[in-house]
């Protein structure tokens, strides 16, 4: 087994601010993902990284950057926080393979003032 940790758990920022969310996994998984979940809704993919030096855009990448620092860590940056971005950001990881089972972290709740 393994765990995924996300920091911080709660993030409060000002409109227009650049904000960074971090994710670490100890599954030794190759692939990592960032999702956004708006209140009462499903998850939408922002960015993913198939292997350590890879970065791929998801359906919701505009307004975000991502960085895969090493195999175990994947960061997401909100480039300019907007009030309509109040949401929970979930990190996930999986073994290599497009249909592999994904495991999720506990999430970072973002509030923009």
């Amino acid at each position, binding site marked *: 087994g393994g765990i995924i940790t996300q920091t911080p758990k709660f993030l409060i920022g000002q409109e227009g601010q650049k904000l960074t969310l971090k994710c670490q996994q100890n599954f030794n998984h190759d692939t990592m993902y960032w999702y956004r979940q708006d209140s009462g809704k499903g998850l939408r993919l922002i960015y993913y990284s198939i292997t350590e030096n890879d970065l791929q855009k998801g359906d919701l990448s505009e307004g975000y950057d991502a960085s895969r620092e090493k195999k175990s860590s994947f960061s997401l940056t909100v480039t300019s926080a907007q009030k309509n971005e109040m949401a929970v950001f979930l990190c996930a990881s999986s073994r290599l393979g*497009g249909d592999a089972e994904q495991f999720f972290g*506990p999430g970072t709740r973002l509030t923009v003032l």
Partner: protein
Amino acid sequence: GDQVKQSPSALSLQEGTNSALRCNFSIATTTVQWFLQNPRGSLMNLFYLVPGTKENGRLKSTFNSKESYSTLHIRDAQLEDSGTYFCADDTNAYKVIFGKGTHLHVLP
């Protein structure tokens, strides 16, 4: 339209009763995941399925790829089963598509 449609959107169950949640896919699907998001927001893996059936305790899930649907059966519902159940189409290389969820409330 939505590629992954879940029904019902919300459900209240008396403790000890049984129910089934459904997930319909509008495109060909080969792999399905079911998750439970608890009231604290944590997503727990329930099932990872290719066509067929899996069972774990009071939960059972079937995936029929020919008819493009999956079901999650809950037997003898308990209070701790409350939360939001998500199904996801895990077919399209790395781009998992989630349904909007079924909000389940188990009543004492």
